[in-house]
């Protein structure tokens, strides 16, 4: 009845199709491969931003108090309280947001006393204290000193609000003094520095994304491969179908390769769906976050397309490593426990993409995981580094080939295929010392 047997590659693909179909019918695998990348991570991202906006809103609505104490009477300039409270004129009502309430603390307060006041934490202590020194007094270095407690958020918030208002008030006083003396106020500032950001809004957006997306790419590749890797190995053993698979009338190489291909497909599906979902939502969400600033988020389509071959090679390597290691487990639960720490081996180096100063060079391009994160970061920023990209691809290809070869070797071992009693370190020993391998 048998006809011409399929080639190893054809058999590999048939096995992969079956494993993929079977895997996606498993609720847990389907959730981690399709549902989470598509909905949960963008939803979490959205929640994080909403939480950030909420906290920012609460911050804006938080009122702080500043005590004003003077060393001697008559030191407080007119309009200081209004300026500290953010009122343009003394008659204006205080603003609804970023409110500061001024509490007069009296005069005759020495500078040391003011500092002590803040440190002592009295019941009526304001969030910050502005001390006005007598310029004629001994040891006076500056006319005003702002005291705050850096260990308290309200005190930090008071400082953040008061500093620009004090600067603006000082500027106003300077201008008024110059005008009263018939001088041009600009003469009082002989050298002024002005900062200008020459980056375009889109470039700024790409810069922000270049720190976020490479980590997500690696994270999703690993997360997408995690459950399928356990499912096709330890899961199969737990379901009692490992023997059936070993009896398939195809070379064992095709079976092991097929499993790795299926895991890789799941990983790629998860990565693609996640990047797609994030890409569609991130622009809107991040723009919400950066509203009013000089950042515009746009989906880096060219970078996503460019990184696809590298992502494919990386997924193959990840899938091979996870599948090979998961094969040492006897049950699904043990497989999950085993792969938990292994995930970190991939995820932690991916953080390299967020390290300032670490760039894609011919050297870093040879380091697997780090290179794919840095290459993606560089691509998002629109930099063309053909040599480094080629070296990255070469390094990942080598990593994938070695990982697949080692994984297939592990999967082929009779001790792994037939399992055995005991915890997995015992099986690793058995694996190392067991003779020969199944065919």
């Amino acid at each position, binding site marked *: 009845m*048998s006809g011409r047997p399929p080639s190893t590659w054809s058999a590999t693909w048939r096995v992969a199709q079956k494993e993929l179909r079977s895997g996606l019918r498993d609720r847990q695998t389907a959730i981690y491969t399709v549902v989470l990348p598509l909905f949960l991570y963008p939803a979490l991202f959205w929640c994080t931003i909403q939480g950030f906006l909420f906290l920012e809103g609460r911050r804006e609505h938080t009122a702080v108090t500043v005590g004003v104490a003077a060393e001697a009477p008559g030191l407080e300039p007119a309009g200081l309280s209004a300026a500290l409270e953010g009122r343009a004129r003394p008659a204006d009502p205080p603003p609804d947001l970023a409110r500061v309430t001024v509490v007069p603390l009296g005069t005759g307060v020495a500078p040391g006393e003011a500092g002590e006041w803040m440190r002592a934490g009295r019941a009526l202590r304001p969030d910050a204290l502005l001390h006005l020194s007598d310029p004629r007094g001994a040891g006076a270095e500056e006319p005003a000193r702002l005291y705050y407690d850096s260990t308290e958020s309200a005190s930090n918030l008071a400082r953040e609000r008061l500093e620009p208002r004090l600067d603006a008030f000082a500027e106003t006083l300077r201008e008024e003094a110059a005008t009263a003396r018939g001088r041009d106020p600009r003469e009082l500032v002989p050298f002024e520095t002005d900062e200008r950001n020459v980056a375009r809004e889109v470039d700024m957006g790409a810069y922000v994304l270049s720190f976020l997306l490479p980590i997500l790419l690696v994270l999703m590749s690993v997360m997408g491969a995690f459950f399928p890797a356990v499912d096709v190995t330890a899961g199969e053993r737990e379901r009692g179908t490992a*023997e059936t698979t070993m009896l398939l009338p195809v070379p064992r190489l095709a079976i092991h390769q097929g499993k790795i291909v299926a895991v890789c497909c799941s990983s790629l599906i998860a990565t693609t769906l996640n990047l797609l979902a994030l890409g569609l939502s991130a622009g809107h969400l991040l723009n919400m976050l950066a509203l009013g600033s000089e950042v515009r988020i746009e989906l880096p389509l060219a970078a996503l397309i460019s990184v696809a071959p590298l992502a494919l090679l990386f997924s193959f390597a990840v899938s091979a490593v996870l599948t090979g290691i998961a094969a040492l487990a006897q049950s699904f639960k043990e497989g999950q426990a085993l792969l938990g720490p292994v995930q970190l081996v991939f995820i932690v180096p991916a953080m390299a993409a967020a390290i300032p100063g670490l760039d894609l060079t011919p050297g870093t391009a040879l380091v697997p995981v780090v290179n794919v994160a840095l290459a993606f970061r560089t691509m998002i920023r629109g930099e063309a580094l053909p040599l480094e990209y080629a070296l990255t691809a070469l390094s990942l290809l080598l990593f994938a080939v070695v990982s697949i070869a080692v994984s297939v070797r592990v999967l082929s071992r009779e001790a792994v295929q037939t399992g055995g009693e005991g915890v997995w370190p015992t099986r690793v020993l058995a694996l190392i010392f067991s003779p020969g391998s*199944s065919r």
Partner: protein
Amino acid sequence: MPTPPTDPSPAPAAAKAPAIEARGLTKTFSDPRRGEVRALVGLDLECHFGEIYGLLGPNGAGKTTTLRILATILAPSAGTARVAGADVAREPLEVRRRIGFLSTGTGLYPRLTARETLRYFGGLHGIEPEALEARIEELIDTFDLRQIADGRCESFSTGQRQRVSIARAVLHDPPVLILDEPTTGLDVLASSAMIAFVESRRQAGTCVLFSTHTLSEAERLCDRIGVIDRGTLLAAGTYEELSARTGREWLDEIFLALVEQAGVDGRDGREEARA
């Protein structure tokens, strides 16, 4: 259970040669805790086409290890074995193409449907798509799977699983069937259906090698019986031959006599060696 249609063409390669031939089959496992475990010790076995051969032995005797080596799941540590003309060590793929394997666990992929399971195995056996679909329909009718053909195997009863498993095992009409305790755990109906199926293969010219520790099953089905204990084949022959050799009438008595005799011989051998 209805008799499955069979391919009338003769078994491959050597129809006159034994369907299964094992010589000095040995299997040792390295266990980090127990050290070296000898599951088979120079086992010899010979089964023929059109013959039902029962491998009888207590738990841990080496029955499953023997069948697993013959099915190429395990590699022998020493000795040789040929199945349907193919060497298990040198041509394992060819062996897998020529056998059908069944065990109590059925080993069906739970998330595939019965039809998908048959299609998957048929495809890997290289059966052309049109011929495969026709064969699947034929097996669905033969094994009364119409109602469950498109249901996932995980939802089937034990009996239904066993029927799908048999359909899968005979899909490519193999000349050799290896059955590892096929009736263990089955209810009376499913068990008798399995026995009927095994009997039907004799007429088809198939060699059926099956392991069991159910003596009545072996007595009823087997043309020849091999008694295995501690990894060694103690005796093999027809029921009558074994009865004559041990002087016992019932199979359970024959079995016990052979096992006891082996124990005595083993002790004597060890004492002689010490002397």
